[in-house]
């Protein structure tokens, strides 16, 4: 797996009225060519901020530190003009709400063709032909006759297909998809996920899928990263993560999901609250809610290779402990230790 994107110790802070908000803290992550990587976590965990940092679309109040490499190129060292050139070309994006990602006054085909022309010196005819081919590829029926249709004539699912056509217009190497199916109905979501997987196979695009729905990630991703309150806590191949989550947060998150096996039983509740990111705890940010909390948790656990395929940032993990010269946890707590049930 060759690296397409390398993030090293990436932190994002937002300057605000009463001090700064630490939205992302020291995230290190590598995305390989041709893989679908899922980034999951609950609202406010920093997954969208991280992807925006990658796109260079953060607001001026955000300060990004660390290294963001795209094909070995330092994104933070590039000029705004260079980054603009890159967006929509090598890097492209699909947003959650297809209703607002398209301009309501222009025909859908025109909008796809425009993306082509923004980055390629092609004639109008060529760009139109390309746009038509793209619309057909994403499954817009009767693409020729719908070419000039404004977005509101299309259903939500169809609009999201058009957004995807525009995102794929210039064969990007990396496609960022931020909750691309959240606004869609279940049967339409299934269609769009199929399409995303198919396009990935055909074009070899690397996809960074941001989602809060663990099911969506389980269905189409190769690897998954779990974020909590700005920290990346676990990265693993999808099957392993879901079968045997190792970070206490990942485990709690999966046990909070309703499923057939848990019918009639209480779902797991994570006690306490997400920490205030304008005044985050100094160590592991999950520590306050964690049933296995130890003294060492006041220090941020590094994200280390737990084994050849999995990375985890938790002081329970022997490999993490080894980095600090700590012996393995004496009496390893059972994975099913009860988590305090609190009101909220």
């Amino acid at each position, binding site marked *: 797996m060759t690296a397409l994107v390398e993030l090293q110790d990436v932190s994002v802070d937002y300057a605000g009225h009463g001090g700064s908000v630490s939205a992302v803290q020291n995230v290190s992550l590598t995305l390989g060519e041709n893989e679908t990587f899922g980034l999951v976590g609950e609202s406010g965990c920093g997954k969208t901020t991280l992807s925006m940092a990658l796109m260079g679309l953060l607001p001026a109040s955000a300060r990004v530190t660390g290294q963001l490499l795209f094909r070995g190129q330092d994104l933070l060292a590039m000029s705004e003009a260079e980054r603009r050139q890159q967006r929509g070309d090598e890097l492209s994006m699909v947003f959650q709400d297809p209703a607002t990602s398209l301009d309501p006054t222009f025909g859908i085909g025109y909008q796809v063709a425009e993306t082509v022309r923004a980055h390629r010196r092609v004639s109008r005819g060529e760009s139109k032909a390309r746009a038509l081919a793209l619309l057909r590829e994403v499954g817009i029926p009767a693409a020729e006759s719908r070419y000039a249709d404004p977005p509101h004539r299309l259903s939500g699912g169809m609009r999201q297909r058009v957004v995807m056509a525009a995102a794929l217009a210039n064969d990007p190497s990396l496609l960022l998809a931020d909750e691309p199916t959240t606004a869609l*109905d279940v049967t339409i979501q*299934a269609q769009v996920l199929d399409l995303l997987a198919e396009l990935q196979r055909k074009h070899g695009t690397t996809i960074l899928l941001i989602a*809060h729905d663990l099911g969506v990630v389980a*269905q189409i991703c190769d690897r998954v990263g779990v974020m909590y309150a700005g920290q990346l806590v676990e990265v693993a191949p999808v099957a392993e993560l*879901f*079968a045997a989550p190792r970070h206490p947060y990942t485990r709690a998150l999966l046990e909070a999901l*309703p499923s057939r096996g848990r019918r009639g039983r209480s779902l*797991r*509740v*994570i006690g306490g609250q997400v920490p205030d990111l304008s005044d985050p705890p100094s160590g592991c940010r999950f520590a306050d809610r964690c049933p296995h909390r130890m003294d060492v948790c006041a220090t941020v656990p590094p994200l280390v290779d737990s084994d050849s395929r999995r990375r985890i940032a938790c002081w329970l993990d022997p490999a993490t402990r080894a980095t600090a010269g700590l012996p393995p946890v004496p009496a390893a707590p059972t994975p099913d230790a009860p988590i305090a049930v609190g009101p909220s």
Partner: protein
Amino acid sequence: MTEQSRTVIEQDSVPLLEVEGLVKRFPIRRGLFGSGSVHAVEGVDLQIHAGEVLSLVGESGSGKSTLGMCVTGMSTPTAGRIRFAGEDVALASRRGRADFRRRVQPVFQDPRSSLDPRWPIETTIREPLDAYRVGSSAERTARVAELMDLVGLPRHFAPRQPRELSGGQQQRVAIAAALALRPELLVADEPVSALDVSVQAQILNLLDELRNRLKLALLFIAHDLSVVEHLSDRVAVMYLGRIVETGPVERIFSAPEHPYTRALIDAIPHADPGRKMSRIRLTGEIPSPVNPPSGCRFHPRCPVAVDRCSTEEPQDTQFDEGHSAACHVAAAALAQRGSIISVLSEGATS
């Protein structure tokens, strides 16, 4: 009594809520002169028994929310009958209707918009008590404290404004306000879909607990089928204003009869990479409820449709105790099974 769910208690023969042939159409204006109507709900029958959780599932445009609005009295049906504890709500006196409103309470999807941003949460919880003049002022205050305990809100939250609360806490406030008048039925329209997974788990646990403790019936309107499977006793599947299948939750999820139910269940993305979504996809999208298709409304998207489906509207066929579906193909298969069985049994007797 055709419907019978596992929670029904024997003497409880009158359903708490009975909906019969409910129709709701919204007039729409197109330009100055054109007009038409949205057929949001087209002839729905439904029953909920005391203490039962019935989930109403379907995609956007299926009419499930409209049905919920009619049931809570926030919308007046175009036709059909709603009976609560055996009494026709439309024919009830003014007092009877007020009583019905007290006994059926809604819970909305977005807790942010269901709380007045200017009201401290205790005022919100107290509002229904004031409106119905329940007890003395001191008793109302005590009841607010009791309700806050019931939904797991710390009492010192009482003077807080909604914006000082997290989404989960806001939803607890909304539920507390809905419970203030000791209703017998909660109509919850997507109460957890605006919440994060771990918060959603808290609210689902709370609903489950309330239902056990207060013997509360719940009409749970949702699109997330894994949540539905977790919480419900029975499920009704809606498509374009019609209930296409209804039955006990285990039966619906393990052996659905209607092809639309099957497609919905197949489209669930399970949080288990080993359990992939089925390869079979429903093509196309839900048609406009202004011009619903003829015959079976699902036929243009149906993978098993036959000629008859486009012309003749299927009637409810009972497949099992409390399990029925409206599908020609499934009914034909049932009839065939039946005839085979009868042939076999005839063969055995002769």
